[in-house]
């Protein structure tokens, strides 16, 4: 137990931006065929180091076939909230779920070069205590560690709706289900919140049979993937409003609330509009009378293509959909990064006015048809996917894999894992760093990135900017 709060806890997003920069990154290593154990790659991000931009350590899972995907910290800046009384936790453990196995690994990264597995929570414990399966997004919150799941009970995860469960933030014991009244929520993906305002927002991908074996085209074309976002009274654990974005807006994935808790808005990315193949970003906000609203504020058009250049799944459409698969908001709530995994583009929008985003920068790399090369001349498999922004907002890191079976459908000829970095201009603009290019060990793909000391998609703050 510490006498002082962890130095990586910051009362406000502003103060987090001024904190020392990241020295290490932690990136998922995924063995898509389950022939090797998945792992977490420790990446050296200190430009002064001899091993800068290299994988300097690997923590491998105890089992194979877990399918690591998203992961998060045991504690974030919100631990400083006097309400939670956890000010002396350390931001030290990564909670890494396997979305295929439902096993959860707790990895101690206090010494990044000696990072090791601290605890393994077996799938049975999660099934038994929560009735959920396929754990996904991790956030540290008021009552412990919150874990969203993609599946309910039963073999294929369709016995009951998926939801969120809570783990103890000190012992990592699974406590139980979060929801007391889920309302119409029957699918799950991402969630995040505003702690002082006491609301949570959650999103929907699809049920396990809709993604585990690959994207199901019939389900997509009949709009059966998720297309609603849910607003919750966080502490009452109650769904207070569900907004249907329209059934054509298939797969409402990442939820990114403004980091400044005095603001009551945020963003949600939609993978594909089935009427026109566009990718979209919705801005959601709370009205003066307390009701939630959502409006489409960014659309990204598909690009026509020769069917011969397209994978089977897309031949009939004669176009490449942008496929907005991940978004991330800088800590100053100014720039929203949008990964267009199909096109092979990373967009940077100035969202200073959240209702009127303006494209401020763009990088082209990879892509189903475009196949843009990295400035160093090397190939980039797939397209830009999981994106993470440094706390100071000056560096943007991303990887390339979406999900094992989906990679193979959209990019049947690609293989490999890469992590790259782009630098952000003083007033926006985005440029790939020619010298930062990490090729993952053979047989591994790459997914979500976490940064030492916290990052833009995990840190929640209990104090507003001043």
């Amino acid at each position: 137990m510490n006498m002082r709060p962890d130095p990586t806890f910051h009362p406000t997003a502003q103060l987090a931006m001024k904190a020392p920069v990241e020295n290490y990154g932690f990136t998922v290593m995924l063995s898509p065929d389950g022939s090797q154990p998945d792992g977490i790659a420790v990446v050296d991000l200190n430009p002064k180091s001899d091993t800068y931009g290299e994988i300097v350590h690997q923590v491998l899972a105890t089992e194979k076939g877990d399918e690591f995907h998203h992961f998060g910290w045991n504690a974030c800046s919100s631990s400083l909230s006097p309400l939670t009384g956890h000010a002396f936790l350390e931001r030290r453990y990564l909670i890494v779920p396997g979305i295929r196995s439902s096993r959860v690994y707790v990895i101690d990264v206090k010494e990044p070069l000696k990072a090791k597995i601290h605890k393994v929570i077996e799938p049975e414990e999660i099934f038994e205590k929560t009735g959920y399966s396929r754990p996904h997004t991790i956030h540290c919150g008021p009552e412990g560690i919150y874990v969203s799941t993609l599946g309910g009970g039963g073999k294929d995860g369709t016995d009951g709706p998926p939801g969120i469960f809570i783990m103890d933030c000190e012992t990592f014991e699974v406590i139980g289900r979060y929801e007391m009244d889920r309302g119409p929520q029957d699918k799950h993906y991402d969630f995040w919140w505003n702690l002082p305002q006491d609301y949570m927002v959650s999103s929907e991908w699809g049920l396990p049979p809709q993604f585990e074996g690959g994207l199901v085209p019939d389900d997509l074309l009949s709009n059966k993937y998720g297309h609603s976002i849910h607003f919750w009274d966080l502490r009452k654990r109650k769904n207070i409003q569900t907004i249907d974005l329209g059934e054509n807006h298939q797969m409402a994935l990442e939820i990114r609330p403004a980091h400044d808790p005095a603001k009551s808005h945020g963003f949600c990315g939609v993978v594909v509009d089935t009427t026109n193949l566009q990718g979209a970003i919705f801005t959601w906000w709370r009205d003066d009378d307390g009701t939630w609203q959502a409006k489409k504020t960014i659309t990204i058009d598909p690009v026509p293509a020769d069917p011969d250049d397209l994978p089977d799944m897309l031949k009939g459409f004669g176009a490449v959909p942008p496929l907005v698969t991940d978004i991330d908001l800088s800590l100053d709530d100014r720039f929203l990064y949008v990964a267009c995994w199909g096109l092979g583009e990373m967009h940077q929008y100035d969202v200073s006015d959240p209702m009127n985003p303006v494209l401020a920068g763009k990088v082209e790399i990879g892509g189903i048809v475009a196949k843009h090369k990295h400035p160093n001349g090397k190939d980039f498999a797939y397209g830009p996917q999981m994106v993470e922004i440094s706390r100071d907002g000056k560096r943007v890191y991303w990887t390339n894999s979406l999900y094992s079976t989906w990679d193979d459908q959209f990019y049947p000829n690609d293989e490999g894992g890469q992590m790259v970095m782009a630098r952000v201009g003083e007033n926006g603009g985005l440029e790939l760093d020619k010298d930062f290019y990490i090729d993952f060990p053979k047989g591994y793909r790459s997914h979500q990135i976490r940064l030492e000391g916290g990052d833009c998609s995990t840190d929640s703050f209990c104090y507003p900017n001043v």
Partner: protein
Amino acid sequence: MTLELSSLTALWWAVIFSGLYHGINPGMGWPLAVSAGLMERKHSALPVALAMLAFGHLIAMLAILLPFSLVTTLLYWEEEIRIGAGMLVIAMGVYLLINRRHPKFLARVHPSRLALWSFLAAMAHGAGLMLVPIYLGICAIGADDTGHLAARELMGNNIMNALAVAFAHTLAMTVAGGLIATIIYFWLGLKFLSKTWFNLDVVWALSLILVGGFGVYSAYAGH
């Protein structure tokens, strides 16, 4: 008599001192007052939040002290009550030393319900119990001076004592916590929030044991 007067003064100072101590402890809520002022974007939210925290704390003190003010009328059992109360406070301290987990239910309180939060935080941490041995000491001296009074009048006196102890303690707490909150809010800024926040868990538990021990000792010693 002089001895009693000086020990009475010392006990009242203990009431004030414990108030300052609770007020400085971030766990009793001053960081919430800073947060309230910033969230509502107006200075007046800060004193309002401090008042709500004070109110919750006051109620928690009274919830513990008033029942004791009733049993103090059982003069015959005075020593046993004071020893029992001291042991109870020691037990709370030992419990907090052993169980270092934070009470989870506090996190379920809505951030704007500051009075409720303050009440629950004080109860969960045994803040009221810390006052009991001091309060019983004050009552005992009072009872000696007014030994001829009827039980009803004695009880009235002791209830007044409980109110006075709770008010004085809460006032001291609010002054201390309010001072820190105000300095951080207006001058130092939130950067100092993480620097001024110390882990008082162990010190707090030891304080309970110390105060409980004092209660037991003073009961044996006569005062």
